């Protein structure tokens, strides 16, 4: 039994934990709305001037565009390659299945620093000029395992008998995939692609190594911070945070919607009025 005193203590710890997690974020958000350039208390009033400033900055706009381009290319490539890899590996009976899956998702354990330096060396060796393309390629390496794990879990859970039933009804491999497999998993795949987009969009460490003369939003924040410090950085960070959060919400909504749909079919709901007799 938990006495009132103990639960009070636990409550205090919880509040402290939540404050520790969210406090700094709230401060950043708060000061992005500050009416003066000061970044510390006392707070002197609200204003949207820093948001106006970043929206009128050509530098910010170009960095944001680059981030969107890189994240879009990364997410699209990951969606395509990751789906192929996960589908192939969940539908083969080959002995290479286990080891291959391991190779596909093990990079999840690699530190960004390692991926960054390794790719930089590799790009230099094959004399590829650093550009947004190299950033997208590097991000693909980084986000692929996340996508792969989610896609594989979703494809693994599908009932193989459904694909067999579709083949029995005359559908060849491609039609089975398009008409039966894909319709059941696309929400999860799109959700995982959103996650890939979010991971790429605010990635900094790897980008730092393999980016050329261009700039992405996280790169811009970093380089600005080295020079000055004013609430416009807070404004950018806040927008970045909101955008990423939005993508995570979309990811979560799509995967849980898909899960509910799946459950609904696995456990048939017997509505009394529809009971067996027609």
């Amino acid at each position, binding site marked *: 039994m938990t006495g009132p005193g103990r639960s009070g203590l636990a409550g205090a710890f919880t509040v402290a934990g939540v404050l520790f997690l969210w406090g700094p974020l709230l401060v950043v958000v708060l000061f992005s709305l500050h009416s003066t350039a000061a970044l510390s208390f006392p707070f002197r009033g609200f204003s949207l001037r820093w948001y106006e400033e970043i929206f009128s900055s050509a530098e910010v706009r170009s960095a944001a565009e680059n981030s969107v381009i890189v994240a879009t290319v990364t997410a699209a490539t990951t969606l395509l390659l990751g789906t192929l890899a996960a589908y192939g590996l969940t539908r083969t009976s080959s002995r290479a299945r286990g080891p291959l899956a391991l190779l596909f998702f093990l990079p999840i354990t690699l530190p960004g620093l390692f991926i960054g330096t390794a790719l930089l060396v590799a790009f230099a060796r094959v004399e590829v000029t650093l550009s947004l393309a190299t950033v997208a390629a590097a991000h693909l390496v980084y986000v692929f395992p996340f996508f792969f794990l989610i896609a594989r879990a979703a494809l693994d859970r599908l*009932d193989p*008998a*459904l694909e*067999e*039933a*579709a*083949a*029995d*009804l*005359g*559908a*060849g491999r491609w*039609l*089975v995939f398009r*008409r*039966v497999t894909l*319709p*059941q998993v696309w929400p999860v795949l799109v959700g995982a692609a959103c996650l890939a987009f979010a991971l790429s969009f605010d990635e900094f460490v790897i980008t730092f190594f393999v980016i050329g003369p261009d700039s992405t939003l996280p790169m811009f924040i970093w380089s600005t911070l080295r020079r000055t410090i004013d609430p416009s950085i807070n404004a950018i960070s806040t927008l970045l945070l909101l955008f990423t959060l939005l993508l995570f919400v979309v990811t979560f909504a799509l995967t849980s919607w898909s899960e509910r*749909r*799946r459950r*609904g*079919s696995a*456990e*048939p*709901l*017997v*509505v009394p009025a*529809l*009971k*067996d007799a*027609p």
Partner: protein
Amino acid sequence: MSGEPRVRLEGVSHRFGDVAALRDIELDVADGELLTLLGPSGCGKTTLLRIVAGFERPTTGRVLLAGEDVTDRPAHRRATNMVFQRSTLFPHLDVFGNVAFGLRVAGVPRAEQEERVREALRLVSLEGYEHRRSHELSGGQMQRIALARALVNRPQVLLLDEPLAALDLKIRLDMEAELRRVHRETGATFLYVTHDQREAMALSDRIVVMNAGAVEQVGTPAEVYGRPASTFAARFVGDANVLPVDVLDVSGDDVSVSLAERRRQVTCAGARGGPAWLVLRPEAVQVERLAREAGAEALTGIVRDVAFRGTGFQYRIAVDALEAELKAEAPASSPELAVDERVTVNWTPSACWLLPRDDDARAPGGPLATREETPA
């Protein structure tokens, strides 16, 4: 029925690694017939069905559909359709989308799709269900939709892989009647797999009894029940007492046998002298309260168990001269016997059947072992 078999299996064998799942199966399925593959789990019946469907390629042998060799053709290019044990309705499609799936894939025009889906749903008594989702259906309804989804393509042969096994008993009985009606109305060829001998007897034109990857017997339900080809078939199809006897003399169909040193008469065609198995159906065994003086030739015993089954009583009798229990069924109108009562057992000679027995062979599971009514 036309002369050419709808399905012909020629020397079909199948191995999974080192395990022989099927051994040299020869089988014809006639046009319009409902043929059941009956056997315990692991006997190879489902593998055989999957070979006909094209999901498995036989290790050796040929599969012919309406005279055409389809052994090398994958499932999606065969004119067979399957109803699976579990529901395989596509969860992302409604009933119409499910039933029309094969037609859509085949490129049938939309108007014809709608007409044929309506017709198929009428056939399974689920008219107007086009826009239901599979999770809004009961188990029985799902299987009827699966039946419609298969039949709408007018397959050469409809394959049914234990389609009722996952349903409750009451719904299962309704579905059996439904399947018989659909079979009559369509005149389609059904190849049906089940481990439930009661279901097989209720549905089939012919039954193929399978055991350990081989065919034990092919025949009508009455033939398989009345004249089993092996002790396995005798035990698996219906309840049976299988007793070791010695055939003393044969005169036409009248056979004298010796059972526990008592002479008994049996009617059986084609019996030979020597050791044999006497197959005795429980309903052929007559049990009576022991009269004061039982002759030396009488078989006496003691009632070990009584179960009331609605239509009658089911007894287990420990027979003194035999080392095991005999199953007997008596009509509900007969006097009920109590446990531990002394009884005599007898039977009508025409209700028995003899099978050859190797000298020291014992039937699998002991001489008097009987199958459960619905083996798992």
